[in-house]
């Protein structure tokens, strides 16, 4: 008899335990972290350790520890953010995108105004003030820069030396380098539509080198895709195809990094965050991995470089709201930034912190020394749904380069609609 009762008691205990666990989990989300700790939800696993390192450093300077929480699925991450922001189950802090994506979030009223923290950091010299625009909505700052990746051309110095090529200082030098690599049997450039989003890379790079002002205006809805200057950029890319300078369009960045280290691909255009992938493929900064900023095609244009920076955001309704806001005040502290960017091996928005990776440190020196105009990346420029759709259009162009005119017409059609919706939403 007792023997038959025990299993049912066990089952009951199990059910009670499961229910208690579920309740505790639900409450855990609502109650947030214990005092002295603030969770930061991100979408990238490689950011987990750097965030933990930054959290530990912050504990020393502000008695607050940042705890990384990662949802590595981009879609799921965005769903959680969007669906929870208006509720008190929302995460305390987020790693989000800058530019229009951040504006989209700020528009909901669900994230904190961090203008005060920004101004404070600028006064202390903890942040490059020119980045402000990328984190601003209606003249208020809603996110603090986390990393600062420059978009550059990675190359293999050993391969360049073997073929007597120097990192180009002019656009013509770049074209000559491509031609020389091609002659040597090396595919000069990595181009790709794999994984969808990278389809914008060459459009962004060529357009911003030919006319950075036009790039900025086009991305902000002040110019049109059907403009001859946009057409010129696509024609230039099409001419690279004509010369057979590109890799197959389904070569992923991971494979391209390996090919660069191996010496079968000449140059890979990417954000400096590719450094960790290159290192994983056996790349050693300065030895077989180098990087340069693509020279301006128009020498009279203002020298510029594309940047990419994630935003640290504090939510309004997070359970540990006060601590989260307090943490944002210490985020740009040199000790926190040093721990974070050192672990991430990427560039740092705090000019007082030198990048741990020598290649990135050299690039940062050049960008700051030459006072290059920092232009935000295509992905963060423009209403998010416009960017998502135009990326697909650019993928179509990469697969059929002669279609550049129809591609631009399609993109303009989308832009007309998307900007109309965006501006209507601005007014409402």
């Amino acid at each position, binding site marked *: 008899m007792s023997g038959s009762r025990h299993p049912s008691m066990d089952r009951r205990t199990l059910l009670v335990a499961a229910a208690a666990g579920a309740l505790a989990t639900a409450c855990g989300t609502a109650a947030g972290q214990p005092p002295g700790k603030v969770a930061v939800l991100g979408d990238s696993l490689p950011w987990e350790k750097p965030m933990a390192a930054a959290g530990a450093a912050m504990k020393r300077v502000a008695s607050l520890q940042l705890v990384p929480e990662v949802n590595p699925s981009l879609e799921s991450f965005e769903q959680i953010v*969007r669906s929870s922001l208006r509720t008190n189950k929302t995460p305390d802090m987020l790693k989000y995108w800058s530019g229009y994506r951040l504006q989209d979030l700020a528009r909901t009223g669900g994230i904190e105004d961090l203008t005060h923290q920004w101004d404070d950091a600028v006064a202390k010299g903890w942040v490059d003030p020119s980045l402000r625009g990328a984190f601003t909505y209606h003249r208020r700052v809603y996110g603090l820069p986390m990393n600062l990746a420059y978009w550059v051309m990675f190359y293999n110095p050993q391969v360049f030396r073997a073929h007597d090529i120097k990192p180009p200082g002019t656009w013509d030098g770049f074209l000559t380098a491509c031609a020389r690599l091609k002659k040597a049997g090396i595919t000069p450039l990595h181009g790709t539509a*794999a994984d969808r989003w990278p*389809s914008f890379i060459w459009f962004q790079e060529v357009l911003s080198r030919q006319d950075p002002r036009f790039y900025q205006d086009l991305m902000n809805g002040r110019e049109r895709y059907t403009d001859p200057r946009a057409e010129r950029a696509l024609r230039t890319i099409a001419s690279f195809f004509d010369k057979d300078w590109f890799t*197959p*369009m389904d070569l992923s960045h991971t494979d391209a990094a390996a090919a660069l280290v191996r010496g079968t691909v000449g140059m890979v255009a990417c954000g400096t965050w590719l450094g960790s992938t290159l290192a994983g493929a056996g790349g050693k900064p300065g030895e077989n991995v180098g990087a340069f900023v693509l020279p301006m095609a128009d020498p009279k244009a203002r020298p510029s470089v594309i940047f990419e920076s994630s935003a640290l955001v504090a939510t309004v309704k997070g359970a540990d709201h006060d601590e989260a806001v307090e943490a944002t005040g210490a985020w740009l502290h040199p000790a926190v930034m040093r721990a974070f960017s050192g672990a991430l091996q990427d560039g740092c928005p705090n000019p007082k912190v030198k990048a741990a990776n020598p290649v990135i440190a050299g690039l940062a020196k050049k960008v700051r020394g030459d006072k290059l105009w920092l232009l935000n990346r295509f992905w963060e420029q423009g209403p998010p*749904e416009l960017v998502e759709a135009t990326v*697909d259009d650019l*993928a*179509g162009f990469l697969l059929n380069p002669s279609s550049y005119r129809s591609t631009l017409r399609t993109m303009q059609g989308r832009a007309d609609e998307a900007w109309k919706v965006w501006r209507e939403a601005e007014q409402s």
Partner: protein
Amino acid sequence: MTGTATPAHGAAKPTHVRRRVPVRTPHQAAKTGGGRLGGPLAALPWALPAFAFVGVLLVYPFFRSVYGSFFEDNGFTSSFTGFDNYTRLADDPIFGRSLLNTLMWVAGTLLLPVLAGLLIAVATHRMRCGRIAQLVIVLPFAISGAATAVLWNFMLTSEGAVNQVLRGVGLDGLAQPWLLEWPQNTLSMIVASTWQATGLNVVLFAIGLRAIPRETVEAAELDGASGWRMFRYITLPQLRAVSVVVVGMAIVNSLKAFDMIWILTKGGPSRSSETLALSMYRETFRLFHVGYGSAIALVLSVIVVASSWTYLRRQMPDTSTTAVQS
């Protein structure tokens, strides 16, 4: 229930047996008499949790999606737009391509894995080492769809294994970017899916083959049937019940094809390889056109339910007859 314990002579008086149940007083019996034990409503309390689950997890979301499809909803704000999302579907070339890809998946999945599964099962049924051969073909089914996609990515990229093999044997002209251009990206993924899905069909058909009565086969052999005639007139009709299941599953699986496409091409390039499931996902969760995504979901649901229902309705009555006969 009580009848099973009834002596043979008492079978003619079932009421007498019921009175002999010792634990139930007449009062209690009267109390439950409204819904007698085993009555249609008696099972309701037991079925309620199941109803609740199905209601919360299936019925409510379905009707919520139908309701949501009448709104322009970006995840934050929504406004009623009536049938606007559905009229937009009709004008959307991406939806048209998506529908076409979905149909290609249905046709491809019906033709390739079902036929291959049937042929392999029949060919290996009485073969020496046939079970080992079947096991080898079944193995890919044990791999998840996502892992299969990663594996096939190695094979189908421009520098991948398929093109390397083709170039290696001098067929350079056949080497091509399998995943970059429509329609071969969809066709390539159907082949990859076939590689994985065939195994399950082999198992199901093998079970069906073993269930064919030996006497039927022997009788056919005595009548002189063998080879193709045996297959056409004996094996195939006897496999009818299994075929219904296999084809039905193939239709539904192909209509909701997602994981392999998402990992191999993300529906691209330029949305050329999207199916309805991917379009729904992309519109809803990437572009945050929640209402429009709901409309696509509803169209997909209608197609899945209508095709499954039509197919099963055509097949099931005959199948039940076959099952009874066999």
